[in-house]
């Protein structure tokens, strides 16, 4: 990306690590002012289920307290923490709430910090599972990774942190060097307020790591996420929903350059139906058998294959033979993972 190289990326990860450590020390040594009553994390309202909430009841939301005044020296909060339950998230980010509602989002806390004209915003989004928190975090990861638990990345004014059931965004719109340091410090302190780490989705391992572009794996459930990450079809021809789990990865090796998607449906019948509808919508053809491969307008090739309850998809491959080889490889890998994890294969 021509404009995506951040100042920090040019400085390198070593600078970032040093900056993070320096901020951690400074933050610990800072004279902590008493937190004003209004700045405490507010009581989390009851979460009301909506149509995207799976039938399985959500666990209780975890509590988190965002950093207060001068937690990073010189940076003061602009008011009390704003808290948004699932059904109220649109009040904060309007239609942008769809990004979070496509996962088992529970609650968000938002705090703004100012120093002079500079503004930093910390947003902490809580989910019912660490897998879903990772899903939102995974949608776009770029830039160097500061030493912030559990995993983090930074680029041009946006720090993203995943830890346990939380996804944290820390932003500064026009960051100076000093603002970047404060931003990293607030991210670090917020991460430290989250008690538990969590697991990544097991499905990530169902795509091979060979030739996988680093940080390109995206975990998701619903069409709205796929539409944003890699738009395929306007209609939900892949039948994605709350009960589907999916992972997308970008591959860059010679002869393997491709976008690969693996979707896990609850039942193989659903996978069959998705295969048929997708082939019809995308290739404008009728699916015959369990695999379809075709060319696209840019001269590249794409394909889709059913493997039990899994659907394997490959895009942007150079040749039809590449697509077939990639689908074969994906299929083999899935079988190995099923055997390795003890998941019962469903031949449908």
């Amino acid at each position, binding site marked *: *990306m*021509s*404009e*995506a190289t*951040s100042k920090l990326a040019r400085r390198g990860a070593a600078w970032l690590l040093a900056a993070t450590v320096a901020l951690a020390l400074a933050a610990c040594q800072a004279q902590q002012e008493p937190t004003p009553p209004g700045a405490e994390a507010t009581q989390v309202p009851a979460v009301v289920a*909506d*149509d*995207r909430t799976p039938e399985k009841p959500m666990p209780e939301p975890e509590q988190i307290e965002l950093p207060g005044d001068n937690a990073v020296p010189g940076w003061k909060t*602009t*008011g009390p923490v704003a808290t948004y339950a699932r*059904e109220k998230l*649109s009040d*904060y*980010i*309007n*239609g*942008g*709430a*769809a*990004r979070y*509602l496509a996962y088992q989002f529970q609650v968000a806390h938002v705090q*703004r910090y*100012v120093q002079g*004209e500079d*503004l930093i915003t910390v947003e902490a989004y809580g989910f019912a599972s660490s897998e879903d928190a990772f899903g939102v975090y995974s949608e*776009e990861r770029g830039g160097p990774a500061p030493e912030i638990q559990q995993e983090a990345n930074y*680029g*041009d*004014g*946006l720090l993203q942190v995943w830890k346990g059931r939380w996804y944290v*965004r820390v*932003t*500064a*719109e*026009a*960051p100076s060097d000093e603002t970047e340091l404060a931003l990293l410090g607030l991210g670090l302190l917020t991460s430290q307020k989250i008690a538990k780490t969590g697991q990544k989705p097991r499905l990530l391992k169902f795509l091979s790591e060979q030739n996988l572009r680093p940080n390109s794996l995206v975990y998701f459930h619903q069409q*709205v996420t796929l*539409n*944003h*990450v*890699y*738009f*395929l*079809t*306007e*209609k939900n021809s892949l039948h994605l929903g709350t009960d589907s789990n999916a992972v997308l990865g970008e591959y860059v090796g010679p002869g393997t350059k491709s976008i690969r998607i693996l979707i896990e449906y609850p039942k193989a019948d659903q996978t069959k139906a998705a295969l048929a509808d997708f082939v019809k*919508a*995308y*290739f*404008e*053809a009728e699916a015959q058998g369990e695999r379809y491969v*075709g*060319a*696209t*307008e*840019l001269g590249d090739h794409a394909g889709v294959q059913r493997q039990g309850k899994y659907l394997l998809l490959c895009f942007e491959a150079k040749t039809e033979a590449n697509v077939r080889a990639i689908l074969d490889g994906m299929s083999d890998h899935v079988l190995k993972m099923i055997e390795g994890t003890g998941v019962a294969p469903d031949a449908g």
Partner: protein
Amino acid sequence: MPASEGPKAGQVKSLTRRDFFRRTAGALGTSVALSGAACARQEPPAAQPRLAQAPPRPAAPATKVVLVRDQAATGDSGAASEDVVGGMLDQAMLALTGKPTVAEAWRQFVSRDDFLGIKATVMMTPTHFAVVKRIVECARQAGAMADRIIVWDRNVGGSSLAQIRNLLETPRWQAAAQEQPFEVAFDGRSISSVVTQKATVLINVPGLKSHWLSGLGCALKNWAGAVTNINVQDQNVTFAFHADSCARLGMLSAIPEIRQKQKLIIVDALRPLLHGGPQVDPKYLWNYRGLIVGTDPVAVDAVCLQILQAKRNEYQGKPWPVQPPAKHVLVAEAEFGLGTADLNKIEIVKLGWEEGRLI
């Protein structure tokens, strides 16, 4: 490969990634992505509320959209120069109307008897105060009374410049207590009372941004902040527009009061957002330093979509389709008759800074 069946009469074809490349391969930069052939005029489905039927449109001259840019409009941080932005808006209004003076240009849209509602954006990427300030100043010069001007979004509004600044720049700007924005109500139809009861003239002042749900968030999308009782699931709502990438977003501009009173669209393209949105990843903000002005919301959005698409392609160094496709721009023309989305039928007047104009 078997030929596509194509859209049936009265339908807008469901779009795929491949449609983007079909329409843009070898022609990037010359047409609105995903526009054109897939679109056909249709009546609203019977199940949908019939908000306002598109009136028959007489043959009209090409819709005019003015794009004005100035390299000095914003600093690198995005802070806007009130003087420069004010001058840009003046240029745009003269070019749009063909009038000899700025006051005469504005009197084409607002008069002493009008109550002016200015629909800004306060969330995530708020409209720059410099833009709204000049609109208010010019409206007053054209005769509008200060106490009959309201700038608002959702349920908050302001009338004095101090209130408006607070509305758009909170929390960066700490206002005195008497300068706090006031609450704006919605009526029984879930529409802002500014639209239905107060305003005689509406000016739409969106920011230019990509949008997670609709591809483009601009003139047509901005009216989502003038209604309530909506949600992204379209469950138990008054205005169900989120399905199919917000394809039927035009239903908001087709609300009779908006269709009738919206006289002018002024897009704040000083620092647009090219990806994601409305939530901001700062690396996708760019200093375009432009204003886009017109009277046709669909034409304005078509121009903005072209700029956004061109910027995305430039950013990635390869075609990077607006995701999801901004189908609502096409549907706004085809189904709701709100204007023209065909760039070939739009006269784009380009003023000022040329570098990086993208259109």
